[in-house]
């Protein structure tokens, strides 16, 4: 795409360099620490499923038992597979059950015992990664067998709390035109330090993310994709205290997109910043391997801060998300960077400002499948005015070539959408797409005009903020309330007790499959190419 905003390429390069400078210390921290959730993800990738009679997953039981005995400084794998080999347990589940009763004497093995434990752990994880790789191939096959939807993909949410209610709703939404189904999680799951087990029928304002719920919904959408001749993607949330585990389950069950922001949990859920950044790196390595598109959460900043005043914080966060994402192995085509249409309609030229922001993001990230979020803050209860605002959002999305449109509901803020609300919303976006879907090719803002000036101003403010962040450090900037107003100190928030400094002999068998040079999956697909390569898109 050629630039329509006449952005200064040197300034854009400087912005990326500053983001890298701000992010490097965080990456270094992530590489020298682990978390309880990263270690539990290792066990999940090795196939450990199920829970005890209280519903506490075996992965939690085993990691907790090892933490209390040998500690987790060497990772869970060395003591776990050592005990498995030397203790005569026939499975990880049997080991976990015995460990939960305090019947296992864990140790950090040395010499030949350590080598044997490492080999066994790697073999176990190879099975999990083979499944993730096979899922990636299978997604590609399904797309070839059905078809790749044209962008922008239409993204709809279901959230009943009951997976068996969600399934027919999701299938109906796909038939009505949704290209992406997101199953909203139960409120509060982000602060659970375990992933619930099995199919769930009760949730608050959403449905629990569980491996079985993932499997059920993906199977249902496969059926619907075949029926419609169009691949319908499934989305969930790799966020909160169990981010690495949920990312792993997503890879194992062929989810297609995952909400996965570098700072959202810190700012909006008060999860400890260190915990978040460590968990995030592992999660993104998994997503990279699995061919999953991440969706970042910059739209949220604009729900607490003013969408004009804080526009540059969105760009700064996107650049940070890009840096962390690429460092973890994600390709451009997997970076669903987020932003939103949240400027007050009372602001003069508000639509022009929205166009400027959206086009700026498009030009900064030309190959990213941008996720554009509809108005929520200024949806007042006047559903008629809200419908108009949603149409302008859709139009802005078409004109600036956004990739994934979350469909706005005119009843936003009033109730969970009625069937008719969703139908009207889809009618709205279909009209705009059919009427103006190719307007983007003719949208050239006047040189020196308001849109170009506004975009340049926001880029300039972004670079200024990045300079400050890269000087004082990202953790300090977050503690000072730079993003989304809230102040989050580096040692505050939930989950810090689950962060562990790695010892010299730390061993994580997943790293063999995830770190640089080891990322080429068995299926022969290059993970650095876009996951939307087949017959895409823009």
């Amino acid at each position, binding site marked *: 795409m050629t630039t329509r905003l006449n952005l200064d390429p040197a300034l854009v390069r400087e912005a990326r360099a500053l983001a890298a400078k701000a992010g490097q210390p965080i990456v270094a921290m992530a590489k020298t620490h682990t978390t309880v959730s990263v270690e539990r993800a290792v066990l999940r990738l090795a196939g450990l499923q199920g829970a005890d009679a209280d519903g506490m997953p075996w992965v939690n039981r085993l990691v907790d038992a090892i933490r209390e005995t040998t500690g987790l400084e060497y990772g869970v794998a060395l003591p776990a597979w050592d005990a498995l080999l030397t203790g005569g347990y026939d499975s990880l589940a049997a080991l976990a059950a015995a460990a939960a009763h305090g019947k296992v004497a864990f140790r950090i093995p040395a010499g030949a015992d350590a080598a044997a434990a490492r080999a066994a752990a790697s073999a176990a994880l190879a099975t999990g990664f083979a499944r993730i790789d096979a899922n990636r191939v299978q997604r590609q096959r399904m797309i070839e067998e059905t078809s790749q939807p044209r962008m922008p993909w239409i993204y709809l949410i279901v959230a009943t709390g009951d997976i068996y209610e969600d399934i027919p709703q999701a299938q109906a939404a796909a038939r009505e035109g949704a290209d992406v189904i997101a199953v909203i999680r139960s409120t*509060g799951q982000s602060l659970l330090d375990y992933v619930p087990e099995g199919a769930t029928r009760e949730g608050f*304002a959403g449905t629990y993310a569980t491996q079985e719920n993932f499997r059920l919904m993906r199977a249902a959408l496969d059926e619907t994709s075949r029926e419609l001749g169009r691949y319908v993607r499934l989305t969930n949330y790799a966020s909160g205290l169990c981010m690495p585990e949920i990312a792993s389950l997503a890879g194992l069950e062929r989810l297609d997109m995952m909400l996965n922001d570098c700072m959202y949990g810190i700012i*909006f859920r008060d999860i400890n910043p260190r915990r978040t950044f460590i968990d995030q790196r592992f999660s993104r390595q998994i997503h990279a391997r699995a061919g999953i598109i991440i969706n970042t959460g910059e739209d949220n900043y604009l729900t*607490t801060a003013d969408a004009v005043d804080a526009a540059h914080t969105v760009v700064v966060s996107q650049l940070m998300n890009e840096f962390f994402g690429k460092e973890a192995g994600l390709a451009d085509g997997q970076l669903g960077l987020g932003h939103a249409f949240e400027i007050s309609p009372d602001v003069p030229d508000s639509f022009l400002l929205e166009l400027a922001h959206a086009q700026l993001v498009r030009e900064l990230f030309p190959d990213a499948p941008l996720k554009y979020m509809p108005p929520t803050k200024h949806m007042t*209860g006047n559903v008629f005015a809200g419908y108009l605002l949603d149409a302008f959002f859709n139009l802005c999305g078409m004109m600036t070539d956004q990739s994934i449109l979350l469909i706005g509901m005119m009843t936003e803020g009033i109730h969970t959408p009625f069937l008719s609300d969703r139908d009207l919303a889809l009618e709205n976006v279909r009209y705009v797409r059919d009427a103006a879907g190719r307007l983007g090719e003719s949208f050239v803002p006047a040189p020196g005009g308001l849109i170009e000036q506004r975009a340049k101003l926001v880029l300039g403010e972004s670079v200024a903020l990045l300079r400050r962040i890269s000087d004082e450090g990202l953790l300090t900037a977050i503690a000072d309330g730079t993003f989304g*107003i809230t102040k989050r100190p580096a040692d505050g928030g939930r989950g810090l007790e689950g962060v562990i400094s790695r010892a010299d002999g730390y061993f994580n068998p997943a790293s063999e499959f995830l770190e640089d040079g080891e990322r080429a999956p068995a299926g022969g697909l290059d993970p650095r190419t876009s996951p939307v390569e087949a017959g895409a898109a823009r």
Partner: protein
Amino acid sequence: MTGNIVRPYGDTTGDGRIQVSFTLPVPFGTPAEKARAEGAAMQLAGKMGLEPAMVVHGKGMGPDYTFFIVYGRVSHLVDLSQVTVTEREFPLLSSAEVNLRIRTGLGRKLVVVGACIGTDAHTVGIDAILNVKGHSGEKGLEYYREIRVVNLGSQVAVPDLVARSAAEGADAVLVSQVVTQRDAHISNAKEMSAAFREADPDSGRQRPLLVVGGPRFDPSIAAELGVDKIFGKGTTPGEVASYLAYALAPDPGGAAAEADQKVGASA
């Protein structure tokens, strides 16, 4: 007719015309199905008191549902003398007036602790009231010089809220509840007020003013929830600040204010 009796106004006084939209679980495919669906919509409109009614729009949504827009005339009369509203019992003050009243009436900063309790992670409401940014053009409580705000954020456990309120010396506790599935906002508010009633009853310290807010609360059930005040949808920070000043900072100049000082016990 007295001025107390009104009807809906379409384009002529007294025409009684209104518009409604709804969905029925009936198919809208074949001509016969369409005729039956529109008849079903007409029947519902009639039972709702629309006579005559006109189905101006019917659209099938999937194989099993139809969306309707209906215009019609209602015969019902509205008797304005029978309308009951919860009158605002406190005056709306500017931020300068709120600061002045706290300074003169309380003689120190007014301490507000805010939180979303239970599993509710939606801080948008509490943030809109507390954050400097505020909403609807009004700055939040953090902006008021004489108010000290402690925003505990989301998913705060009730015992933590009680303990933190005591530690901060809270004059008022603001709790926001957005999630309403299975009436969670009601049960959470009751749990919260009960915890404050039960907390350390012998300390001699008066419990803080308890204020809940959220889009789905009925402002008239404060007593049922055991709280002092409920704010519903559309509440602005200025209204909350005015109420806190009225309830907690006695107006030195007004005798009427005397009765208001014990608002903590009024519910």
